[in-house]
């Protein structure tokens, strides 16, 4: 992945946009298929009804003209799509997967969790403007599309998912190739290779990588810093709102335990979730005793156990994509809370979910001498 190229020597290629960005990207993929570099492309497409976008694995290159690389919503987290294709093996097809940075990062986490095989997959990401909450899009798809296009033009993300608005990794390069829209001159964008695999693709396309990408680097860095400040502030406010048990319970009070958040989460891959298993199914006497000890219990109990338990299970790999919040039928700010906790837990181990395949999962590695400050002083 990206660790094989030194950041300082990084160059890119400037691609000219003839009609618009979307068509240029689609054309790029068409060329790769014509040259046999890829056998199929995983890319978003609008559904026939026009009211949503889904990932489609395209083998027929003539269909690429209808692909929507910059889709306004994230109906299914891209990492789930890549995992669906490769969980049972790498297959014969060489596939390019066009994903947002958080989807690329989740793909890397899933690879570490042995739910994805990247052997025949080339990961291509792009500067992400964010995605709209899916319910906003569905309400009025035509209007929403216009809002989205304007948002990109004006670099205004107020219509995007709450966690998108405070995302400082929207241009993070974690895959093999990255399309840099920010900082590029008018009617151009950058293609930046970040691995040997990515370099090879460009070389096979006869695209020379010799252009300076400083304008992209400085623009994206500035944006990331701005977002980091915004993120810190948002998390500080969120902590006040949800910290302490009563506030936490209030935030999740309307949770109906549907577990939608868990099922749309790319990191939650367990076939039978612990919180759906026999472990949480108790005989009536247990429930009655619990009720008697408190006077009454919510039924089914253990909503908070599910929420906090899920945090302990996936927080270290959480990429703050926000799919959970989109799927919550009760409009609970799940992603905002989980994302805040994820930042803090990952920081404990100096870990950044999806940054690199070479970073071991924090709970699968250890140093003999570390985290002394967590221990009691025995004197």
């Amino acid at each position, binding site marked *: 992945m990206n660790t094989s190229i030194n950041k300082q020597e990084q160059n890119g290629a400037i691609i000219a946009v003839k009609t618009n960005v979307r068509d240029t990207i689609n054309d790029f993929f068409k060329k790769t298929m014509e040259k046999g570099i890829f056998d199929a492309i995983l890319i978003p497409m609008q559904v*026939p009804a026009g009211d949503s976008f889904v990932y489609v694995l395209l083998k027929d290159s003539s269909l690429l003209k209808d692909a929507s690389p910059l889709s306004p919503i994230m109906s299914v987290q891209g990492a789930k799509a890549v995992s669906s294709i490769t969980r049972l093996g790498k297959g014969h097809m060489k596939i390019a997967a066009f994903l947002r940075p958080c989807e690329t990062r989740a793909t890397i986490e899933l690879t570490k969790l042995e739910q994805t095989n990247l052997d025949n997959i080339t990961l291509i990401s792009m500067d992400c403007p964010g995605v709209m909450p899916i319910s906003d899009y569905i309400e009025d798809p035509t209007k929403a599309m216009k809002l989205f296009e304007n948002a990109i033009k004006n670099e205004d993300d107020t219509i995007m998912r709450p966690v998108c608005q405070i995302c400082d990794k929207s241009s993070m390069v974690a895959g093999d190739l990255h399309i840099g829209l920010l900082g590029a001159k008018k009617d151009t964008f950058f293609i930046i290779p970040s691995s040997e695999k990515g370099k090879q693709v460009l070389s096979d396309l006869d695209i020379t990588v010799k252009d300076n990408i400083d304008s992209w680097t400085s623009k994206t860095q500035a944006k990331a810093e701005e977002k980091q400040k915004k993120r810190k502030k948002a998390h500080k406010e969120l902590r006040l709102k949800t910290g302490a048990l009563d506030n936490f319970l209030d935030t999740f009070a309307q949770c109906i335990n549907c577990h939608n958040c868990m099922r749309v989460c790319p990191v939650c891959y367990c076939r039978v979730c612990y919180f759906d298993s026999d472990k949480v199914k108790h005989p009536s006497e247990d429930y009655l005793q619990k009720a008697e000890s408190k006077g009454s219990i919510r039924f089914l109990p253990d909503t908070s156990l599910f929420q906090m338990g899920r945090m302990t299970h996936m927080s270290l790999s959480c990429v703050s994509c926000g799919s959970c919040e989109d799927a919550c039928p009760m409009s609970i700010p799940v992603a905002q809370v989980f994302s805040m906790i994820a930042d803090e837990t990952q920081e404990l181990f100096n870990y950044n979910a999806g940054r690199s395949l070479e970073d071991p999962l924090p709970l699968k590695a250890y140093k003999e001498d570390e985290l002394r400050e967590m221990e009691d002083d025995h004197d």
Partner: protein
Amino acid sequence: MTKDEEFKPKILAFLCNWCSYAGADLAGTSRLKYPSSILPIRVMCSSRVDPLFILRAYLGGADGVLVAGCHPGDCHYQEGNYYTRRRFVMLKKIVEDLGLQSDRLRLAWVSASEGQKFAKVSIDFTEKIKELGQNSAKHNMFL
């Protein structure tokens, strides 16, 4: 060549081991002609056919699905085909209510000695499917 002449239907046929598969065999050994559109799949009993098999076949693009078993009352396992009948009736209703072409699904009782009937059912059903044309689910990317 017109489209119709080119259309070679693919009809999945679930045949129970004891009656209808034997009947199909008999049609073969008796040199009775029946279309190559019939693709047999042997099951031990017609009640082994989960409605999901039929649904998967339909959505997978099969132009027709035939389920054939022993005549009611003659099931090798006593009751299997009674359940088959109920499940098939339910599935056909669902397919019909969804606006799909329920005529692409057919249930037939064919005993081991009914080679003729098997051939007739195959010929009739293939004709019917030819009339209906190709199953549009075959090429849909968004199923």
